[in-house]
């Protein structure tokens, strides 16, 4: 009897021990919220967390002292948390500022229209790259302040190119046919694959069709555009040609993907500029890399050598403290050229704020890339990225297409594959 009571008491005590402690912090944060503490949800400690903390420092130099409580979670986790809290209608524990990837932004803005605070009056939208504005706004109201660009680059090993008889100049403004031709030569000369591809991740397809100003959805951002989308068809064909030419190396996850170029097994990486840090991670490959413009599609005269993969923007939630949060974002990410130079120098982030491209940090040469001013090149390409409406269902459609791609690679007719995908997508997106 005594034992069980002791046990009961002990657990109650422990329970109340951890709760009483949380009570005090809770109370503290409630009162502080009234004054100056803002909560931020974001991912990646070396990138986004640093960026928002630097924004706070910059802001505090000239304005009232704000305190940020940055809560770090993986991106998928933030999506999960945000969905749970928003759909349960409980504002308890919600952040003031949250970072959302552009592909996902519309699904939140549409599903929870009142949950986000309109920022139209806080920044000049025309100062930002046009392609960033569609995902961050809804019905001409701006809800997100654009942050990093996912402008894509064609990272390439110059030493392998040389062995195959090419120079970096030969790669400027090429299309996919030329890319495959070069890939074959590189494979012949060095035995290395030109590219590594993860069959579950169609990022490459997304980048290809955006060079032509096309997307999985029509311009309304709702109707699937797969069955009769000639650019998507061309992208699928190119994808198969790459595999048939035997210049690709299959990888099955992110770690293998990184390893494929860190180990020197692949000659090029075609992805968003945020990959720069991972490319640089293998210090022994210094002076062996260059970044050139992304290949365009050959079947479309309007296709450009610029596209995008990923990238995200900051949103303010419609809860107490919103004006302060909006002010913080407006005076840093929304208008501060010097701030953009700082975050570029510190974490390599490239924004989409057009005036920032004139700053000195953007023009600096990068030693790793043989002195190439890669930031300047990237921000030059940002201006050319075709604007498309990502809509709210990028990843839903991508899951359907990934299966379709496998069918196509196994020999199924492409038109049938895309028509089937169209039907499936129409059923799922309603």
């Amino acid at each position, binding site marked *: *009897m005594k*034992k*069980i009571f002791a*046990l*009961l008491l*002990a*657990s109650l005590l*422990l*329970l*109340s021990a*951890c*709760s*009483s402690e*949380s*009570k005090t*912090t*809770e*109370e503290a*944060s409630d009162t502080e919220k009234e004054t100056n503490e803002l*909560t931020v949800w974001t*991912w*990646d*400690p*070396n*990138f986004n967390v640093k960026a928002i903390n630097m924004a706070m420092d910059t802001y505090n130099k000239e304005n009232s002292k704000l305190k940020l*409580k*940055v*809560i*770090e*979670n*993986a*991106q998928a*986790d933030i999506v*999960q*948390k945000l969905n*749970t*809290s928003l*759909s*349960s*209608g*409980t504002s*308890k*524990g919600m952040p003031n500022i949250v970072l959302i990837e552009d592909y996902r932004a519309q699904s939140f803005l549409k599903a929870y229209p009142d949950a986000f605070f309109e920022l139209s009056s806080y920044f000049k939208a025309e100062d930002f790259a046009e392609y960033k504005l569609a995902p961050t706004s809804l019905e001409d109201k701006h809800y997100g302040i654009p942050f990093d660009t996912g402008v894509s680059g064609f990272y390439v090993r110059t030493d392998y190119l040389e062995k195959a008889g090419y120079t970096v100049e030969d790669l400027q403004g090429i299309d996919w046919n030329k890319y495959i031709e070069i890939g074959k030569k590189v494979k012949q000369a060095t035995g290395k694959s030109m590219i590594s591809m993860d069959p579950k991740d169609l990022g490459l397809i997304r980048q290809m069709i955006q060079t032509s100003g096309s997307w999985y959805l029509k311009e309304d951002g709702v109707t699937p555009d797969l069955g009769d989308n000639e650019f998507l068809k061309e992208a699928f064909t190119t994808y198969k040609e790459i595999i048939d030419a035997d210049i690709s190396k299959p990888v099955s996850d*992110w*770690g*293998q993907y*990184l*390893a494929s170029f*860190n*180990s020197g097994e692949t000659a090029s990486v075609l992805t968003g500029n*945020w*990959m720069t*840090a*991972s490319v640089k*991670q*293998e210090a022994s490959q210094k002076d062996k890399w260059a970044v050139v413009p992304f290949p365009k599609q050959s079947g479309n005269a309007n296709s450009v050598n610029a596209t995008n993969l990923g990238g995200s923007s900051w949103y303010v939630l419609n809860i107490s403290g919103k004006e302060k949060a909006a002010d913080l974002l407006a005076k840093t990410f929304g208008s501060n050229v010097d701030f953009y130079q700082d975050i570029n120098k510190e974490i390599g982030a490239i924004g989409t704020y057009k005036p920032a491209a004139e700053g000195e940090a953007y023009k600096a040469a990068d030693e790793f890339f043989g002195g190439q001013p890669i930031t300047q090149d990237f921000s030059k390409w940002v201006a050319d990225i075709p604007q498309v409406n990502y809509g709210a269902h990028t990843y839903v459609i991508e899951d359907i297409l990934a299966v379709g791609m496998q069918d196509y690679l196994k020999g199924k007719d492409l038109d049938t594959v895309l028509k089937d995908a169209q039907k499936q997508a129409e059923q799922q997106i309603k």
Partner: protein
Amino acid sequence: MSKLSSIFTYTFLSLASIVSIFPFLWMVVSSTNKSVDVTKGRLLPGSHLLENFRSLLDTVDLIPVLINSIKIAVITTLLALLIASLAGYGFEIFKSKMKDYVFSFLLLSMMIPFAALMVPLFRMFGTISEAAPMIGIDTLAAVILPTSATAFLIFFFRQSTKMFPREIIEAGRIDGLSELGVFIRIYIPTMKTTYAAAAIITFMASWNSYLWPLVVLQSSEKHTLPLLISNLGSGYSPDFGVIMTAIVIATLPTALIFFILQKHFVAGMMGSVK
């Protein structure tokens, strides 16, 4: 012949054990390597363990997170054992017409996936937060309470109680023990192995639980180890060496508890199946 077959058995079992232990070994080895070497698939131990450990301590608040995980797992285990064993005992020993209906209702609750319960549960804790913030959203109590009584554990205890000799209970009652006395003085000591097995199951489940803590714990200082590891892997260029070091640290307590209670665990599992 018998020699041949034993050679075969040994080779087969050795191969099987290598296959099953390989991921674990790779995890330990990777924690001593640089991130680049991990992605390249290096299988030899490196010299980076201390550096990985140091940068883990630098990038995250490991100790408070570890303490949170321990607090949650220990309290959940204690509460769950107490509640489930009382319930399992009651269901099996006492007579009632309705008890089987209640029990099947309880089992039904095992069929509902947690994803379906999450939003209502979150809403519930949101409302609780208004009245009693000490057990509302963003407290460790909010993680502990929903998992402290599980249908599975009650089922597990009821099954094990089936082989508990009722004569002893009668003897205890005749000797003047109260009902609670019978439970504490006779039942608990006899069912030690069942308690051990249940303790391991609950501790592991609680230690590794991810979804609910993720949703309900908002502030970083209340995060648990699985959340911390997930965050480490979230960057554009994750440091795999550091992640592996964190995973090794997260694995140690469960491994330790399992080895301590292993003997009882096996006996307990056997007991419940009989």
